[in-house]
Protein backbone atom coordinates (compact mmCIF):
# COMPACT_ATOMS: atom_id res chain seq x y z
CA UNK A 1 0.00 0.00 0.00
CA UNK A 2 1.64 3.16 -1.18
CA UNK A 3 -0.21 6.39 -1.79
CA UNK A 4 1.14 9.72 -2.89
CA UNK A 5 -0.76 12.39 -1.06
CA UNK A 6 -1.30 15.88 -2.30
CA UNK A 7 -0.76 18.60 0.25
CA UNK A 8 -3.96 20.60 -0.07
CA UNK A 9 -6.73 18.06 0.40
CA UNK A 10 -7.37 16.75 3.90
CA UNK A 11 -5.34 13.58 4.31
CA UNK A 12 -8.31 11.65 5.72
CA UNK A 13 -10.29 12.45 2.56
CA UNK A 14 -7.42 11.13 0.43
CA UNK A 15 -7.26 7.96 2.52
CA UNK A 16 -10.99 7.37 2.02
CA UNK A 17 -10.60 7.93 -1.73
CA UNK A 18 -7.78 5.38 -1.76
CA UNK A 19 -9.98 2.85 0.00
CA UNK A 20 -12.83 3.47 -2.43
CA UNK A 21 -10.50 2.92 -5.35
CA UNK A 22 -9.23 -0.30 -3.82
CA UNK A 23 -12.81 -1.46 -3.29
CA UNK A 24 -13.97 -0.46 -6.79
CA UNK A 25 -11.04 -2.21 -8.48
CA UNK A 26 -11.45 -5.31 -6.36
CA UNK A 27 -8.09 -4.97 -4.63
CA UNK A 28 -10.10 -4.96 -1.41
CA UNK A 29 -12.73 -7.66 -1.45
CA UNK A 30 -16.06 -7.57 0.37
CA UNK A 31 -15.56 -8.83 3.91
CA UNK A 32 -11.79 -8.55 3.72
CA UNK A 33 -9.97 -7.55 6.91
CA UNK A 34 -8.25 -4.20 6.76
CA UNK A 35 -5.22 -3.01 8.74
CA UNK A 36 -5.68 -1.52 12.20
CA UNK A 37 -5.62 2.26 12.45
CA UNK A 38 -2.09 2.18 13.76
CA UNK A 39 -0.91 -0.19 11.02
CA UNK A 40 -2.51 1.97 8.37
CA UNK A 41 -0.82 5.07 9.77
CA UNK A 42 2.51 3.25 9.62
CA UNK A 43 2.01 1.93 6.11
CA UNK A 44 0.78 5.19 4.62
CA UNK A 45 3.12 7.25 6.80
CA UNK A 46 0.33 9.44 8.10
CA UNK A 47 -0.68 10.72 11.48
CA UNK A 48 -2.52 8.02 13.51
CA UNK A 49 -5.25 10.53 14.37
CA UNK A 50 -5.82 11.02 10.64
CA UNK A 51 -6.10 7.26 10.10
CA UNK A 52 -8.58 7.16 12.97
CA UNK A 53 -10.62 9.95 11.37
CA UNK A 54 -10.67 8.18 7.98
CA UNK A 55 -11.88 4.93 9.60
CA UNK A 56 -14.54 6.75 11.58
CA UNK A 57 -15.93 8.41 8.42
CA UNK A 58 -15.81 5.12 6.48
CA UNK A 59 -17.58 3.38 9.34
CA UNK A 60 -20.34 6.00 9.29
CA UNK A 61 -20.65 5.75 5.50
CA UNK A 62 -21.00 1.97 5.83
CA UNK A 63 -17.84 1.25 3.82
CA UNK A 64 -16.23 -0.70 6.64
CA UNK A 65 -17.61 -2.53 9.61
CA UNK A 66 -16.16 -3.13 13.04
CA UNK A 67 -17.63 -5.67 15.40
CA UNK A 68 -16.57 -5.36 18.99
CA UNK A 69 -12.79 -5.64 19.24
CA UNK A 70 -12.28 -7.56 16.02
CA UNK A 71 -10.35 -6.09 13.08
CA UNK A 72 -12.43 -3.87 10.80
CA UNK A 73 -13.64 -5.37 7.53
CA UNK A 74 -14.76 -4.09 4.15
CA UNK A 75 -18.55 -4.17 3.95
CA UNK A 76 -20.39 -6.94 2.10
CA UNK A 77 -23.35 -4.65 1.43
CA UNK A 78 -23.88 -4.81 -2.34
CA UNK A 79 -25.65 -1.46 -2.48
CA UNK A 80 -22.79 0.32 -0.76
CA UNK A 81 -20.23 -1.37 -3.01
CA UNK A 82 -22.19 -0.40 -6.14
CA UNK A 83 -22.49 3.15 -4.88
CA UNK A 84 -18.73 3.38 -4.36
CA UNK A 85 -18.05 2.25 -7.90
CA UNK A 86 -20.61 4.65 -9.33
CA UNK A 87 -19.27 7.51 -7.26
CA UNK A 88 -15.73 6.94 -8.51
CA UNK A 89 -16.88 6.76 -12.13
CA UNK A 90 -18.92 9.94 -11.72
CA UNK A 91 -15.93 11.73 -10.15
CA UNK A 92 -13.69 10.68 -13.01
CA UNK A 93 -16.28 11.76 -15.60
CA UNK A 94 -16.77 15.10 -13.84
CA UNK A 95 -13.03 15.76 -13.85
CA UNK A 96 -12.80 14.75 -17.47
CA UNK A 97 -15.74 16.86 -18.61
CA UNK A 98 -14.40 19.79 -16.65
CA UNK A 99 -11.02 19.71 -18.35
CA UNK A 100 -12.37 18.95 -21.82
CA UNK A 101 -14.96 21.69 -21.64
CA UNK A 102 -12.25 24.24 -20.96
CA UNK A 103 -10.75 23.42 -24.39
CA UNK A 104 -14.13 23.88 -26.12
CA UNK A 105 -14.35 20.52 -27.89
CA UNK A 106 -17.78 19.49 -29.30
CA UNK A 107 -19.24 16.53 -27.45
CA UNK A 108 -19.44 14.29 -30.56
CA UNK A 109 -15.77 14.73 -31.26
CA UNK A 110 -14.98 13.90 -27.64
CA UNK A 111 -17.14 10.76 -27.71
CA UNK A 112 -15.40 9.51 -30.86
CA UNK A 113 -12.03 10.14 -29.27
CA UNK A 114 -13.05 8.27 -26.15
CA UNK A 115 -14.19 5.25 -28.14
CA UNK A 116 -10.98 5.25 -30.14
CA UNK A 117 -8.86 5.44 -26.99
CA UNK A 118 -10.85 2.72 -25.29
CA UNK A 119 -10.31 0.36 -28.21
CA UNK A 120 -6.59 1.19 -28.31
CA UNK A 121 -6.24 0.33 -24.68
CA UNK A 122 -8.62 -2.63 -24.70
CA UNK A 123 -5.90 -4.77 -23.10
CA UNK A 124 -5.36 -2.24 -20.32
CA UNK A 125 -7.02 -2.75 -16.98
CA UNK A 126 -7.89 0.83 -16.15
CA UNK A 127 -6.03 3.08 -13.76
CA UNK A 128 -3.35 1.50 -11.68
CA UNK A 129 -2.63 3.02 -8.35
CA UNK A 130 0.97 3.78 -7.58
Amino acid at each position, binding site marked *: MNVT*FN*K*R*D*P*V*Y*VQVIRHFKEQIATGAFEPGQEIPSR*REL*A*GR*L*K*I*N*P*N*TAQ*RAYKEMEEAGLIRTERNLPSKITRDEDVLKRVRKELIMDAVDDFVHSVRSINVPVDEVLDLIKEKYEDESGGKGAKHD
Partner: protein
Amino acid sequence: MIEVNDIKKKFGRKKVLKGVSFTAEKGEITCVIGINGVGKTTILNAIMNLTPINAGQILINGETINKHSYEKITFIPDAIIMQPGMTIKASMQFMADFYTSWNQARATELLGFFKLDENEKINNLSKGNRAKVNLLLGLALDVDYLLMDEPFSGIDIFSREQIAEVFTSHLVEDRGVIITTHEINDIEHLIDKAVLLDGGKVLKQFNSEEVREEEGKSVVDVMREVYQP
Protein backbone atom coordinates in the same frame (compact mmCIF):
# COMPACT_ATOMS: atom_id res chain seq x y z
CA MET B 1 -1.91 18.92 27.97
CA ILE B 2 1.04 21.29 27.97
CA GLU B 3 -0.08 24.91 28.23
CA VAL B 4 2.38 27.65 27.46
CA ASN B 5 0.85 30.96 28.57
CA ASP B 6 2.36 34.26 27.52
CA ILE B 7 5.94 33.33 28.35
CA LYS B 8 8.72 35.90 28.07
CA LYS B 9 12.45 35.42 28.10
CA LYS B 10 15.37 37.81 27.83
CA PHE B 11 19.02 36.94 27.39
CA GLY B 12 20.83 40.08 28.56
CA ARG B 13 19.07 42.84 26.66
CA LYS B 14 17.87 40.58 23.92
CA LYS B 15 14.18 39.70 24.18
CA VAL B 16 13.96 36.22 22.69
CA LEU B 17 10.40 35.35 23.67
CA LYS B 18 7.92 38.23 23.83
CA GLY B 19 4.79 36.53 25.08
CA VAL B 20 4.49 33.08 23.53
CA SER B 21 1.29 31.07 24.04
CA PHE B 22 0.25 27.71 22.65
CA THR B 23 -0.99 24.33 23.78
CA ALA B 24 0.10 20.79 22.97
CA GLU B 25 -2.24 17.87 23.56
CA LYS B 26 -1.45 14.32 24.50
CA GLY B 27 -1.84 11.99 21.52
CA GLU B 28 -0.98 14.79 19.12
CA ILE B 29 2.11 15.97 17.29
CA THR B 30 2.59 19.69 17.69
CA CYS B 31 5.16 21.28 15.45
CA VAL B 32 6.83 24.57 16.43
CA ILE B 33 8.06 26.12 13.21
CA GLY B 34 10.39 29.03 12.75
CA ILE B 35 13.71 29.96 11.20
CA ASN B 36 16.87 29.36 13.21
CA GLY B 37 17.51 31.69 16.10
CA VAL B 38 13.85 32.47 16.65
CA GLY B 39 13.69 30.92 20.12
CA LYS B 40 12.37 27.43 19.41
CA THR B 41 14.94 25.67 21.59
CA THR B 42 14.42 28.29 24.31
CA ILE B 43 10.74 27.35 24.43
CA LEU B 44 11.54 23.65 24.90
CA ASN B 45 14.14 24.48 27.54
CA ALA B 46 11.57 26.70 29.27
CA ILE B 47 9.00 23.88 29.34
CA MET B 48 11.65 21.64 30.96
CA ASN B 49 12.60 24.51 33.29
CA LEU B 50 16.19 24.25 32.07
CA THR B 51 15.95 27.94 31.18
CA PRO B 52 13.86 29.81 33.75
CA ILE B 53 11.45 32.24 32.12
CA ASN B 54 11.07 35.92 33.08
CA ALA B 55 7.28 36.02 32.85
CA GLY B 56 4.32 33.85 31.99
CA GLN B 57 3.32 30.36 33.02
CA ILE B 58 3.78 26.79 31.84
CA LEU B 59 1.40 24.07 32.94
CA ILE B 60 1.80 20.34 32.42
CA ASN B 61 -1.47 18.47 32.95
CA GLY B 62 -2.65 21.54 34.84
CA GLU B 63 0.34 21.78 37.18
CA THR B 64 3.31 24.09 37.16
CA ILE B 65 6.56 22.23 36.61
CA ASN B 66 7.84 20.34 39.66
CA LYS B 67 10.12 17.41 40.31
CA HIS B 68 7.39 14.95 39.35
CA SER B 69 7.00 16.63 35.98
CA TYR B 70 10.23 14.99 34.90
CA GLU B 71 8.56 11.62 35.18
CA LYS B 72 6.03 12.78 32.60
CA ILE B 73 8.12 14.65 30.13
CA THR B 74 11.47 14.36 28.42
CA PHE B 75 13.61 16.58 26.23
CA ILE B 76 15.55 15.17 23.30
CA PRO B 77 18.24 17.67 22.30
CA ASP B 78 19.24 18.25 18.68
CA ALA B 79 22.48 16.29 19.12
CA ILE B 80 23.34 13.29 21.24
CA ILE B 81 24.93 14.02 24.58
CA MET B 82 26.95 10.99 25.68
CA GLN B 83 30.57 10.37 26.59
CA PRO B 84 32.80 9.86 23.55
CA GLY B 85 33.70 6.23 23.01
CA MET B 86 30.51 4.88 24.55
CA THR B 87 28.72 2.10 22.70
CA ILE B 88 24.97 2.30 22.06
CA LYS B 89 24.56 -0.42 24.66
CA ALA B 90 26.51 1.53 27.28
CA SER B 91 24.52 4.68 26.62
CA MET B 92 21.28 2.74 27.00
CA GLN B 93 22.59 1.32 30.28
CA PHE B 94 23.43 4.85 31.40
CA MET B 95 19.83 5.94 30.74
CA ALA B 96 18.47 2.83 32.47
CA ASP B 97 20.56 3.60 35.58
CA PHE B 98 19.49 7.21 35.59
CA TYR B 99 15.78 7.07 34.79
CA THR B 100 13.18 4.89 36.48
CA SER B 101 10.97 5.42 33.44
CA TRP B 102 13.42 3.59 31.12
CA ASN B 103 11.58 0.90 29.14
CA GLN B 104 14.09 -1.71 27.97
CA ALA B 105 11.56 -3.59 25.84
CA ARG B 106 10.81 -0.47 23.85
CA ALA B 107 14.52 0.34 23.57
CA THR B 108 15.18 -3.10 22.11
CA GLU B 109 12.31 -2.66 19.69
CA LEU B 110 13.66 0.72 18.63
CA LEU B 111 17.09 -0.81 17.97
CA GLY B 112 15.40 -3.16 15.53
CA PHE B 113 13.22 -0.45 14.06
CA PHE B 114 16.26 1.71 13.31
CA LYS B 115 18.44 -1.30 12.37
CA LEU B 116 21.13 -0.33 14.85
CA ASP B 117 23.79 -2.60 16.32
CA GLU B 118 24.06 -1.92 20.05
CA ASN B 119 27.75 -2.86 20.11
CA GLU B 120 28.70 0.01 17.80
CA LYS B 121 30.44 3.01 19.28
CA ILE B 122 28.45 6.21 18.96
CA ASN B 123 31.55 8.03 17.65
CA ASN B 124 31.77 5.66 14.72
CA LEU B 125 28.16 6.11 13.64
CA SER B 126 26.99 8.18 10.68
CA LYS B 127 25.23 11.43 11.45
CA GLY B 128 21.88 9.88 10.62
CA ASN B 129 22.45 6.88 12.87
CA ARG B 130 23.66 9.11 15.69
CA ALA B 131 20.39 11.05 15.39
CA LYS B 132 18.48 7.75 15.62
CA VAL B 133 20.35 6.71 18.80
CA ASN B 134 19.63 10.13 20.25
CA LEU B 135 15.93 9.68 19.54
CA LEU B 136 15.94 6.10 20.81
CA LEU B 137 17.33 7.17 24.20
CA GLY B 138 14.42 9.60 24.64
CA LEU B 139 11.67 7.48 23.11
CA ALA B 140 12.49 4.54 25.33
CA LEU B 141 11.43 6.49 28.40
CA ASP B 142 7.86 5.92 29.58
CA VAL B 143 6.78 9.53 29.65
CA ASP B 144 3.62 11.31 28.49
CA TYR B 145 5.33 14.04 26.54
CA LEU B 146 8.35 14.09 24.27
CA LEU B 147 9.99 17.37 23.34
CA MET B 148 12.24 17.00 20.31
CA ASP B 149 14.54 19.73 19.18
CA GLU B 150 15.07 19.63 15.41
CA PRO B 151 14.98 15.83 15.03
CA PHE B 152 15.29 16.10 11.25
CA SER B 153 18.02 18.67 11.04
CA GLY B 154 21.22 17.98 9.12
CA ILE B 155 20.65 14.31 8.34
CA ASP B 156 20.21 12.38 5.11
CA ILE B 157 16.79 11.85 3.50
CA PHE B 158 16.60 8.12 4.31
CA SER B 159 17.30 8.69 7.98
CA ARG B 160 14.71 11.46 7.96
CA GLU B 161 12.15 9.08 6.47
CA GLN B 162 12.94 6.44 9.05
CA ILE B 163 12.63 8.91 11.88
CA ALA B 164 9.35 10.21 10.45
CA GLU B 165 8.06 6.62 10.47
CA VAL B 166 8.54 6.47 14.22
CA PHE B 167 5.85 9.10 14.61
CA THR B 168 3.30 7.01 12.78
CA SER B 169 4.15 3.86 14.71
CA HIS B 170 3.07 2.46 18.05
CA LEU B 171 6.47 3.48 19.45
CA VAL B 172 5.08 6.94 20.06
CA GLU B 173 1.71 5.50 21.11
CA ASP B 174 -0.65 8.06 22.51
CA ARG B 175 2.00 10.34 23.85
CA GLY B 176 2.17 14.04 23.19
CA VAL B 177 5.01 15.19 20.97
CA ILE B 178 6.37 18.67 20.43
CA ILE B 179 8.85 18.95 17.56
CA THR B 180 10.72 22.06 16.58
CA THR B 181 11.77 22.41 12.99
CA HIS B 182 12.56 24.95 10.30
CA GLU B 183 11.78 22.42 7.60
CA ILE B 184 8.25 21.12 7.31
CA ASN B 185 8.20 19.48 3.89
CA ASP B 186 8.92 15.91 5.01
CA ILE B 187 6.43 15.89 7.84
CA GLU B 188 3.42 17.90 6.66
CA HIS B 189 1.25 14.78 6.74
CA LEU B 190 2.42 13.71 10.14
CA ILE B 191 1.67 16.66 12.33
CA ASP B 192 -1.58 17.56 14.03
CA LYS B 193 -0.86 21.15 14.81
CA ALA B 194 1.51 23.84 13.56
CA VAL B 195 2.68 26.77 15.66
CA LEU B 196 4.33 29.46 13.54
CA LEU B 197 6.86 31.52 15.40
CA ASP B 198 8.65 34.72 14.48
CA GLY B 199 10.07 37.74 16.25
CA GLY B 200 9.55 36.13 19.66
CA LYS B 201 5.81 35.67 19.09
CA VAL B 202 3.38 33.08 17.80
CA LEU B 203 2.09 34.45 14.51
CA LYS B 204 -0.41 31.67 13.97
CA GLN B 205 -1.32 28.23 15.28
CA PHE B 206 -3.63 25.84 13.50
CA ASN B 207 -4.64 22.24 12.98
CA SER B 208 -3.18 21.09 9.66
CA GLU B 209 -6.14 18.88 8.62
CA GLU B 210 -8.56 21.71 9.41
CA VAL B 211 -6.68 24.17 7.26
CA ARG B 212 -6.67 21.67 4.37
CA GLU B 213 -10.34 20.93 4.86
CA GLU B 214 -11.66 24.43 5.40
CA GLU B 215 -9.31 26.52 3.31
CA GLY B 216 -7.79 24.04 0.85
CA LYS B 217 -4.31 25.11 1.92
CA SER B 218 -1.21 23.15 2.73
CA VAL B 219 0.87 23.94 5.81
CA VAL B 220 3.46 25.51 3.53
CA ASP B 221 0.75 27.71 1.92
CA VAL B 222 -0.14 29.08 5.33
CA MET B 223 3.54 29.59 6.16
CA ARG B 224 3.97 31.60 2.97
CA GLU B 225 1.04 33.84 3.89
CA VAL B 226 2.29 34.36 7.40
CA TYR B 227 6.00 34.79 6.74
CA GLN B 228 5.87 36.58 3.40
CA PRO B 229 2.82 38.85 3.52
